[in-house]
């Protein structure tokens, strides 16, 4: 595992969720809000089409953050995000992060999820605990 220092970028994640991802995410999590799985319903409530679950995108942020610790699910101690926009299936999402602090085993990472020009999650702070060795 590489040692992380303040100012380092973590490995970015690029993913283009296919049009059925919201359906599969709904099935996996039980969140069947129709704005995510029914484009006609979404348009009826003023959206351009069905939108991705915000917690799905937060899941990608968590995955990217844990990736900086070799994917160990124990490493991610906390994650705090603000949802600032909607995102859509069939368009690429890019997750990037920068280390903002290192204190002992604890590494703090500032993470952004963007789709096109829109930062759909920002001010995201992940705290990783990476034991030495």
């Amino acid at each position, binding site marked *: 595992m590489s040692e992380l220092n303040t100012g380092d970028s973590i490995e970015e994640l690029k*993913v283009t969720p296919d049009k059925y*991802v919201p359906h*599969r*995410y709904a*099935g*996996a*999590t*039980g*969140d069947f809000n129709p704005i995510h799985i029914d484009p006609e319903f979404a348009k009826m*409530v003023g959206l351009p089409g069905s939108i991705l679950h*915000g*917690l*799905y995108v*937060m*899941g*990608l942020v*968590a*995955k990217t953050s*844990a990736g900086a610790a070799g*994917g*160990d*699910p*124990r490493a*991610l*101690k*906390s*994650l*705090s*995000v*603000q*949802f600032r926009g909607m995102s859509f299936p069939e368009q690429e999402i890019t997750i990037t992060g920068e280390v903002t602090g290192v204190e002992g085993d604890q590494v703090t990472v500032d993470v952004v999820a963007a789709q096109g020009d829109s930062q759909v999650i920002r001010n995201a702070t992940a705290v990783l605990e990476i034991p030495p060795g």
Partner: protein
Amino acid sequence: MALKTDAVGKSWPAFDYEIGREKIREYVNVMGIDNPVHVDAAAAKAAGFRNIVAPPMFVVVYSAGAMGPVLFDPEVEMNFAAMVHGGQEFQWGEPVCSGDLITTTPSCKEIYEKDGKGFYVFETVSVNQDGAQVVHATWTNIVRGV
């Protein structure tokens, strides 16, 4: 219309969820997480887990049932048509493994108005069958035009 704040400080009944390996598999499949500790008991145990382990964000699966009644409580009077999920925070403790029984207790931390928007802040605390805390969560919903 003044924001209704009657629910501040209120707790709701705890919600129990038993962690199953196939639900973990569904979750990691859709998220594209390929670490074998999430699907293979031998790999999980070799890595020091008690059993197949859930990824941190699996919290949304086992705590959703606790949050449902909160949002639909008439005392909260949530205006769903104008509501967005504004923010989310999780602090994780003991890992969650297949076979665990997770109990999640929700409460309302604060309801306040700022810049013409209503902020509804809820907390959930989830513990496992041994009483060990697995997650502390803060859920913030924002309602426009209050």
